[in-house]
């Protein structure tokens, strides 16, 4: 079954077409990479799926319901590109707040501790978010999304500013989540992360260049390196 179904989606903002006639599906329990250069429409597409972006045309179905349906807010987790955490709260307080917003009540503290640990911040739990590095803050933001155990996770550039070890750990976490049935749509502009995805959506100038598996992309372009494959595709299609 598809976790996300997008059909003929267009978004026009201020007379400019930001997303142009996109159609694709994201299978349940998979990690799908949303790749493309800066300004290609990745964030706008994620916002559409969350339901906070007005759309001009097309339909977007998320977990069987139209995107933006209030009931979906319990089942969809979203992290923005700039980590949206409260700098004057501690790591655990930030995560616990999100647990409480999902109605976990007394269970919130335990869940917050588990989510914080899963992003590798167990030791920083009582630190104020203000004192964290950019990469740590984006992991707090991720923990805030994880704490509600959403069926669908939409992550906007979650690995920016992280060292290779942490990036590997986070991708391992994404794989574990997918193995337990969570669907992940992860945007990135780092091509080496593409290889870790089940499927790839390549965006450029608001258009979908490809919707394929990493192996499929390699076969279609005849190159082994995904970075190179992306360049081939970009050159084939005028922006």
């Amino acid at each position, binding site marked *: 079954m598809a976790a996300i179904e997008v059909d003929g989606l267009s978004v026009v*903002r*201020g007379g400019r077409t930001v997303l142009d006639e996109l159609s694709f599906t994201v299978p349940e329990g998979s990690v799908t990479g949303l790749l493309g250069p800066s300004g290609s429409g990745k964030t706008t597409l994620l916002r559409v799926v*969350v*339901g*906070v*972006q*007005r759309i001009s045309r097309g339909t977007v179905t998320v977990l069987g319901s139209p995107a*933006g349906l*209030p009931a979906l*807010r*319990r089942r*969809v987790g*979203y992290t*923005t590109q*700039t980590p*949206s*955490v*409260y700098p*004057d*709260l501690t790591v655990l*307080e930030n995560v616990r*707040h*999100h647990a*409480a*917003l*999902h*109605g976990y*009540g007394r269970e919130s503290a335990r869940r917050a501790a588990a989510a914080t640990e899963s992003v590798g911040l167990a030791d920083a739990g009582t630190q*104020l978010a203000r004192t964290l590095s950019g990469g740590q803050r984006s992991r707090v933001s991720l923990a*805030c999304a994880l704490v*509600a155990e959403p069926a669908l996770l939409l992550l906007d550039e979650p690995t920016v500013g992280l060292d290779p070890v942490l990036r590997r750990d986070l991708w391992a976490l994404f794989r574990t989540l997918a193995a337990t049935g969570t669907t992940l749509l992860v945007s990135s502009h780092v091509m080496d992360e593409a290889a870790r995805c089940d499927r790839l959506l390549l965006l450029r100038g608001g258009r979908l260049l490809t919707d394929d598996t990493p192996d499929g992309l390699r076969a279609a372009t005849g190159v082994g390196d995904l970075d190179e494959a992306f360049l081939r595709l970009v050159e084939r299609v005028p922006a």
Partner: protein
Amino acid sequence: MNPALTLATTHRVLSQLRRDRRTLALVIVVPCVLLWLFSELFADAPVIFQRLAPTMLGVFPFITMFLVTSVAMVRERTSGTLERLLTTPLGKADLVLGYGLAFGLLSLVQAGVACAVALGLLGMDAPASVTVLVLVAVGNALLGAALGLGFSALAATEFQAVQFMPAVVLPQVLLCGLIVPTDRMADWLDAVSRVMPLRYAVEAMTTLTGAATVQGRVWADLAVIVGCAAVALGLGAATLRRRTA
């Protein structure tokens, strides 16, 4: 609306306030210092102090909560935390009421301390009821918070939010009867002040201190204040957009 989510918001806002010791100190200590300055300024004319002190008790919470709320909401909007909150099950009413409750509690402390200082140390004449006096002060605080929430939607930055204070609050302070009693103002100024909620706050405070019992007019004033606060909160909630272009 969901009470658990409203309380989660209140808890979060109070945790943030608890960390901000300087703001807390300013909110609680500054009104007391200003009241003391007034009492010293009018040491030779205690009648004026007796007239001004109760009205100031009504005006302080209004100004403070307007500032605190408008800046806090602009911060939520510009930092992306608001958009994030609106992708969770939290309802707009939960957010607005959660903020209102947190700042209402803060204003309760502020008004309580200021009243204690004015009555106990500065020799302000006892009002008909201290409880009702504090209640009116908290109503004012909610009104200030509600207006701050609404006007934060018009401010793109914290700078702009702070500039709304003189624009929205000072005309009310000038015309509410604090500086010139409303019955001595020009007719058109009196008419303008009638649509300003702060006038009713000052009227309630003055009525409370001018009589031995709580008069019906005080309850009518309080109803106007709380009514305006509720309307402003509603409008403020309407400015929170879940879906944007």
